[in-house]
């Protein structure tokens, strides 16, 4: 089992003929993801890699292929429109990889997607992977291995680092989800924790947060109140100065809010395992599995 993506995932790639879209569509096909369609307006009728049909609109792609999941690799000015198009076409899981989406665009996208009962992951995220089954996004497949730990993270390469260390230590994953580093994104920690709690194959969860916002604090409260499974958490940015954006648009300490210390305290108060460094995940999860 897994969360959000599984053997029934039928993927449409928005921006499949672009530089990033075509590269990662190939990678996903190679990994075994069921890529049923691509979308690039004006290229409808073409075939990608001689097998994946390309459509002008997501609605056309859904009508023709029954796609239920979408991954978006379009430039930032068009990403908001792409997310809304996917949700409007009836896609139930929309994954937006694009980095640099204006935050005011996201304030409009979020209620739109919600109204259509779609789940949005991202933007500015690496996507998700259910090892051995399906990969939607850009997480390198070879660093993952199937197992019983759920992984959820606000960052990309940090996730890879942790997953890589887990895999090397023999700890496999049910699903790894990168929820993205922007201040407003579609799916937050709590929704992922909820899904992992409900997934029978997930026995423990590794969660990587960052400075900025209060998502991790709320997630910790959720863990305390609603999770039966062990959760180990980490916060990147303990050495970050206040008021400076640490790369991710969402990774910023505003005034005294959103510090790593505050988040780690919340983790401790919730009875979570606290990883001081990425390598601690291995030992802390071993203890809990």
């Amino acid at each position: 089992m897994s969360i959000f993506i599984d053997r029934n995932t039928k993927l449409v790639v928005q921006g499949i003929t672009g530089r990033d879209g075509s590269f990662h569509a190939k990678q996903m096909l190679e990994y075994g993801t069921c890529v049923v369609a691509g979308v690039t307006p004006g290229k409808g009728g073409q075939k990608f890699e001689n097998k994946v049909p390309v459509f002008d609109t997501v609605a056309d792609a859904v009508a023709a292929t029954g796609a239920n999941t979408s991954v978006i690799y379009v430039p930032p000015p068009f990403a908001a429109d792409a997310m809304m198009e996917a949700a409007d076409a009836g896609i139930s899981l929309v994954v937006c990889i694009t980095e640099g989406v204006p935050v005011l665009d996201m304030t409009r996208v979020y209620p739109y997607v919600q109204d259509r009962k779609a789940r949005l992951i991202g933007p500015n995220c690496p996507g998700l992977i259910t090892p051995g089954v399906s990969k939607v996004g850009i997480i390198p497949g070879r660093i993952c291995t199937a197992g019983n730990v759920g992984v959820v993270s606000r960052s990309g390469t940090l996730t890879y680092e942790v997953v890589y260390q887990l895999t090397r230590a023999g700890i496999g994953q049910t699903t790894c989800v990168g929820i993205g580093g922007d201040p407003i994104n579609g799916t937050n920690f709590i929704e992922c924790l909820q899904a992992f709690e409900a997934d029978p194959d997930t026995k423990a969860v590794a969660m990587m947060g960052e400075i900025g916002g209060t998502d991790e604090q709320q997630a910790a409260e959720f863990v305390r109140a609603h999770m039966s499974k062990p959760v180990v958490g980490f916060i990147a940015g303990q050495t970050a100065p206040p008021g400076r954006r640490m790369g991710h648009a969402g990774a910023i300490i505003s005034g005294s809010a959103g510090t790593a210390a505050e988040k780690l305290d919340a983790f401790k108060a919730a009875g979570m395992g606290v990883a001081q460094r990425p390598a601690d995940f291995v030992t802390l999860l071993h203890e809990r599995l």
Partner: protein
Amino acid sequence: MNIHEYQAKDIFRRFGIPVPPGDVATTPDEAERIARAYGTGVVVKAQVHAGGRGKAGGVKLARTPADARAAAQQIIGMQIKGLTVPKVLVTPAADIASEAYAGIIVDRASKRAVYMVSPAGGIDIEEVAATMPDKIMRLPVDPRYGLLPFEASRLGFFLYMDNAKLAREAAKIMRQLWQAFTASGGSLAEINPLVVTTGGDLLALDAKMVIDDNELDRHPDIAALRDETAEDPSEVAARRANLTFIKLDGNVGCVVNGAGLAMATMDLVKYYGGEPANFLDIGGSSNPEKVVNALRIITRDPNVKAILFNIFGGITRTDDVANGIVAATRDTPLTIPMVIRLTGTNEEIAVQILQQHGFSAMTDMDDAVQKAVRLATGGKAA
């Protein structure tokens, strides 16, 4: 992107918000001339991208043009939170009857832009929130409707409960500020204080705007407001090289791909007893040129005693990074030690390239960080 007070006021003015006049001076002479032209007492205000100007001595009242000159002399070039003040705003002093606060921020929890107003202005809004929470009205704005007239009216009456005229004028300013905020691609817009003058008029006495970097392509007029003289030179160089860089005070220079891993690397430096000299994210697509620029920027900092590469190859090809290291050190060899950790995409090729040029590479992050800290501190730490 931060913009200066005077720039924010220009934007506010365009949207009809009442702001006091003012002119910018980069020299004491200019400040004096401006003050003389106004013929009234003026305030000389540091234009700098840092909070707490007042406390730092960056805002001075000047009764005469000579005072204005003296104030500008003191303020221009002074350091506030590590930034040099490049210019001052000279603006006529206002007679203030009362001070309020009005601001718009993007709120992560409600996933909306949120209006915050308080009749207790002139001070830090966080302080008001902590000490007088009932003196703040928070109003999340539905982006699909914008600030509705009745919402603006609620804000206005919260600010000036007992004065319908002021409440209505404030409601109008709330709508104008919302327009200014959205039309500029803001992530923050603030009037603090919004004052009632002794003459009974509303006036935005101070103005602050932060622009969402992701909106700059859409708003070239706003992008053009960037004042590089007000930024740290190494950060300006980094931005031009498409690097995300923040200068810190430590001794271990870090080159990492990805913001989360970059922060985690800095944290690990600290964990093992070192101090990171910077945050630096070379981003996803790694071309060798970026690595060259990154090394150039980091080595300019005399505090840096060792350099640490931590690259996890996903989209980033580690051989690109290796080639960048080779290219950067070919002409100007490093004078400080460097520790290279890389793993992932094309790792074998990368290691080969590095070895051919006399570098060694590690694969474990903790090992690499410990080694870098040891080298930077001369073996004193960890």
